């Protein structure tokens, strides 16, 4: 086992921060992905076009640029807005919030197409039948569409979540005390960069393994009504 030079607690706190961060990113991204898929499948051409532009642009921007842009650009934009409104204090965006918005947006852009494809995979007849039964739109979505979309989308959403987990390390660049930042702190005091970054790597590997097992459990559970060929 590694000798953690008394920095074990700090790394544990960092891990907890990373877990909170990635779960918030997941929620933000799932909601955004649903909205995006709704826009892509909408009857209105303007919404289709907006969603298309949004996903193709966000997919081309490095996550680091998204994080730095939202954190620093957002801070400047908010302060300009505030001074225009006559408020002369200085506000700084919280790095946690900036990380959630930036990586949640990236997750949402990829999840949009996952949801779109899953919704399209549901036979049209089912929705027509539900409508013929007199179900309102929201009920159709909740009872017919959503439970099936979930099954189809889960593996891809899980993979995207694994990507977000790894990208969450980038939020350390704007000062959030997560795993990487905690490791960098320990490195500064111990001068053992290899040891601590390797420990960080293994924490991420551990998180990835837990997530993978979790996804497999959910896949089995949600897919239990499905016939297997």
């Amino acid at each position, binding site marked *: 086992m590694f000798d953690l030079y008394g920095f074990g607690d700090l790394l544990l706190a960092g891990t907890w921060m990373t877990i909170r961060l990635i779960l918030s990113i997941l929620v933000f991204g799932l909601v955004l992905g649903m909205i995006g898929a709704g826009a892509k499948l909408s009857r209105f051409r303007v919404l289709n076009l907006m969603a298309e532009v949004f996903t193709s*642009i966000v997919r081309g*921007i490095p996550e680091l*640029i998204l994080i730095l842009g939202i954190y620093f*650009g957002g801070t400047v934009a908010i302060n300009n807005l505030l001074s225009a409104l006559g408020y002369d204090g200085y506000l700084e965006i919280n790095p946690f919030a900036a990380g959630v918005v930036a990586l949640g947006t990236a997750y949402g852009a990829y999840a949009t197409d996952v949801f779109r494809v899953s919704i399209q995979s549901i036979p049209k007849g089912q929705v027509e039948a539900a409508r013929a039964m007199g179900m309102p739109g929201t009920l159709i979505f909740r009872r017919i569409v959503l439970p099936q979309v979930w099954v189809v989308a889960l593996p891809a959403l899980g993979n995207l979540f694994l990507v977000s987990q790894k990208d969450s390390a980038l939020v350390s660049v704007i000062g959030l005390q997560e795993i*990487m930042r905690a490791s960098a702190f320990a490195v500064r005091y111990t001068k053992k960069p290899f040891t601590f970054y*390797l420990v960080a790597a293994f924490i991420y590997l551990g998180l990835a393994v837990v997530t993978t097992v979790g996804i497999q459990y959910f896949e089995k559970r949600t897919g239990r009504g499905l016939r297997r060929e």
Partner: protein
Amino acid sequence: MDFALMLTSIPDLLRGSIITFELVGLSMLLGMILAVPLALMRVSHRLWFFVPSYAYIFFFRGTPLLVQIFLVYYGLSQFDQIKGSMLWPFLREPYWCAIIAFTLNTAAYTGEILRGAILAIPHGQIEAAKAMGMSRFLLLRRIIAPQALVLALPGYSNELILLLKGSALASTITLLELTGITRKIIAETYKPFELFLLAACIYVLITFVLTRIFNWVEHHYTAYRRPPEEMEAQG
């Protein structure tokens, strides 16, 4: 919005883009060289081939690229043997550290893509080739490689775009590629909004061009899948 600053920063950012291209191009080539044996080891049934390649791919796909860069750039200096070695002049440079980290990372992803492509080749073809008495190398060169490389193209183009986006991380080890130059100009002018927007546009543009090139290459090499009338219509 400071459009004048955006306009005057374009030449600097384009100079940064050249370094980004170098990083991506070199890592892509070196990564491919490493990925081929990795993929072959990964599909092997022999334990001492399979296990090391599996562990390698598991580690590099399961950990953040940022950790990998820091392990190479900051981590290696922990060992006096490395500091004393002939390689140290290279390993001290952020440029080579970034290339080493990107190469090791992309090799793992590419290896996994190639493995999928190799496994997608119908087994009967391989059995037939063996029955004809082809040697292993000939089988690889004539039957597996030409088909697997085409099958791997869509996955590989995705990986290349991820590598391009990942190359922005080189700025965290003080390298002045596209993101690094952008951050440097922001530190001097404090106009983060304008400059990150400009950098984002350049990245999106590069992604767009790369995607187009790959679509064209894929279209070209999958001609055999299209019906003959369509090919005749194209001339």
